[in-house]
């Protein structure tokens, strides 16, 4: 039962901590404008060459329409394909993309297993789900393994990466590798199928002890030792990710939407203006402001000067 509880805890903490992280960034004061072009929210004609509404005479009197379709397309390109890395550093994109695609497949695998926990394996729908679970699981395990090994080798051998990589960043890669490898081993040592995955989500959704499900006849798992190790590692990595820089899936939303794509002007009556007014009281406490001489208030005139 402890493992079942741990699985739920890991899942809840992954989402909970990710949201907490997002809330931390969202609660910071509005920053000065950092627009960086091209911005997909501009009209498609302007976005094509990086133009903006500021190319118009008297722009402040004209309606500034947002191109949300282009924004979604651009965002998907970044989320699904890491487009900027592909365009600007094609040489290493394959390694990084292998790892990221592996993680996406692992997420799909998890969702499918929850569907499978209710659909079972017998029905036509359940059979389709099982095929998809198998594909997603194998792709996840193989790509995550190859991707993390590729990144580890790159960071250990290429000086420009080695010099900038911290032990913690290497630890993160090895942590992911351990999860991927134990997942693959669990698969290989249990008849090359993902019955073990079904056992996990079945136990979670029925709130049963995992050991009982594994020992039962519905989703039997023979080699539970490697499975338990895999679950512990997977759960720990899920809790750890939002707490470290691997939570960049949260940060990326803000860096694009809130920073380089945020070119909303401060017009009278706008939301930007309302925020400026609301946050105008945010100021350093006495003694906590910058100390350079020009930050100090001008001295009161002396009697002589008066």
């Amino acid at each position, binding site marked *: 039962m402890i493992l079942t509880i741990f699985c739920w805890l890991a899942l809840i903490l992954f989402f909970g901590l990710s949201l907490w992280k997002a809330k931390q960034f969202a609660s910071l004061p509005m920053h000065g404008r950092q627009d960086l072009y091209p911005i997909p929210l501009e009209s498609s004609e302007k976005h094509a060459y990086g133009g903006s509404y500021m190319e118009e005479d008297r722009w402040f009197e004209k309606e500034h329409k947002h191109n949300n379709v282009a924004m979604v397309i651009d965002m998907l390109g970044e989320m699904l394909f890491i487009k900027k890395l592909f365009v600007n*550093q094609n040489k290493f994109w394959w390694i990084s993309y292998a790892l990221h695609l592996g993680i996406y497949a692992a997420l799909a695998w998890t969702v499918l297993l929850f569907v499978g926990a209710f659909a079972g394996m017998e029905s036509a729908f359940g059979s389709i789900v099982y095929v998809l679970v198998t594909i997603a699981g194998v792709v996840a395990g193989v790509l995550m393994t190859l991707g993390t090994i590729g990144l580890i080798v790159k960071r250990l051998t290429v000086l420009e990466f080695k010099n900038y990589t911290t032990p913690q960043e290497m630890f993160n890669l090895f942590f992911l590798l351990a999860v991927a490898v134990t997942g693959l081993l669990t698969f290989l040592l249990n008849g090359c199928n993902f019955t073990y995955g079904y056992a996990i989500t079945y136990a979670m959704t029925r709130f049963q002890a995992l050991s009982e499900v594994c020992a039962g006849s519905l989703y039997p798992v023979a080699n539970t030792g490697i499975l338990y190790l895999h679950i512990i590692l997977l759960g720990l990595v899920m809790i750890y990710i939002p707490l470290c820089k691997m939570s960049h899936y949260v940060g990326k939303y803000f860096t694009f939407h809130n920073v380089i794509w945020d070119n909303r002007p401060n017009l009278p009556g706008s939301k930007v203006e309302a925020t400026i007014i609301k946050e105008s009281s945010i100021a350093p406490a006495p003694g906590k402001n910058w100390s350079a001489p020009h930050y100090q208030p001008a001295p009161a005139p002396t009697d002589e000067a008066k």
Partner: protein
Amino acid sequence: MIDGRKLGPRDIGKLPGEQLTFIDTKQLMPLPAPFDNPDTWPKWQEPKPEWREKYAASLDGVIAIDTFETPKTKEEQDELVRKFLSGVEKMLSNEANKGIIQCLNLSMEYCAKCNTCSNACHIFEASGYNEIYRPTYRAEVLRMIVKKYFTKGGKLMPKFVGADIDLTWEVVARLGESAYRCNLCRRCNQTCPLALDNSLFAKEIRKIFSQEMGIAPKPLFEKGDMLQLKTGSSTGITKAAFLDTIEFLDEDCADLTGYEYVTPIDKKGADILLIHNAGEFMAWPENPTAFTILFNEAGLDWTLSSDMMGYDNVNYGIWHDDLMAKKLAVAQNEAAKKLGVQRIVIAECGHAHKAAAVVADRFYPGKDRVPVQSFLPLLRDLVLKGTYDLDPSRNNFLTTLHDPCNYVRQMGIVKPQRDILNAVMPKGNFHEMEPHGVNNYCCGGGSGFAIMNSMNFTYFRNSVSSRKKLQQVLNAFGEASADPNIIKYITAPCSNCKGAFRDLLEAWHMEDYNFHYGGLVELVVNAMTKFETPFLEFLRDE
């Protein structure tokens, strides 16, 4: 000294008391003809012994911060480190640094060290890939300091989290200098898969030095911000001198064109308050004159301001000091409000565009702001609707267009200048640089470099930070670059960029190959059929 290509962020404290690395002139990026032979390149200027003694020359032998006298006693050295850390603490404060804290926290936390940004940096490439110029270098050093002193992880497991740095006064000094090896062009930001901004770290280090330690290059602070707040202009032009200058320029214009154009000053309730970079009045007076001709010919309701803060649009604060940036921007806005104009139009100055239209945009509520726009869309509309009778054949020479980072990559003003150029240049004479538009490279004078000429800093600018731009210019003109019989005009619609080109052309003796540079409005006036005499001086000389 250590070969810069082998340095890592942890090495920044190595060789105390000596110069850490050097600009390897043999490794500098090769250039096309006529500069394909390194013997034609400007010679490296070794820092003089007295400079080394007095200033922080121990990063790469270049001195940018001409007000930073290195501490001599142990007490002074400890005090420098203490003040720096105090500044770092304020940099991380939601209150003291509220205008950028969200962006900073994101960039501080999420860098994946993929080095994609490095390939985008013109200084790193031009230097022959010296690590101290890599966009992530100073960022990583600062990150290590933050982790060591301001995070639990850094205190408990410094080596594991990458906080194993020994913060000496020399590290502080080198970090301060390294902040002035970045043009803040944000090209690295544009290519980052996580949209993180490494130039932000350079700017924050500059801010710590300026806002906490009271240290900033003289041309930016003392002769820049402070002089502007005191006299009205970083050039030192007072109101009386400004009024005299305008009168003189109008007279000169009449002599040249045969037409009397009057520059309106302090016209209450005008539609447009045009604000120039006051450097134009001194260095390139033909530029404000061209504006006067074009705006008067179009019959615009416009004016200049003689208010102390109304005739110079520069704002050096945006490169190193938030308070200075705000004070200047607020004062410029107040000058416009006093006149009761409908809008501020920024003339040919890139950083002033960004300062007034973008940086200042969130300084105070929108209802208190006079709308700010670029001159470019206004002029583009005037040119395209046929306001001026133009003959492109009068601009019978080759030109290329430099895109100022501040209003192209950082404001999205890309097309109007091209529409104007295509209307005033003969077909086939306008050669784009590659890459151009929002993917342009900085002129090398960005973020204050164009006005920083202390000691040997000019070598760094002319040979390293402007090198990529020089390569682009030469490539744009192709074989014509080495042909002194072909006139080549670099169109640079920005005062600081023009300053960088002026020095670049001089340092590389490019006048020998018939290279010229100037603004965009001059080309429009030169194409006007109304005038017999060419407006461009180099055509008159012919």
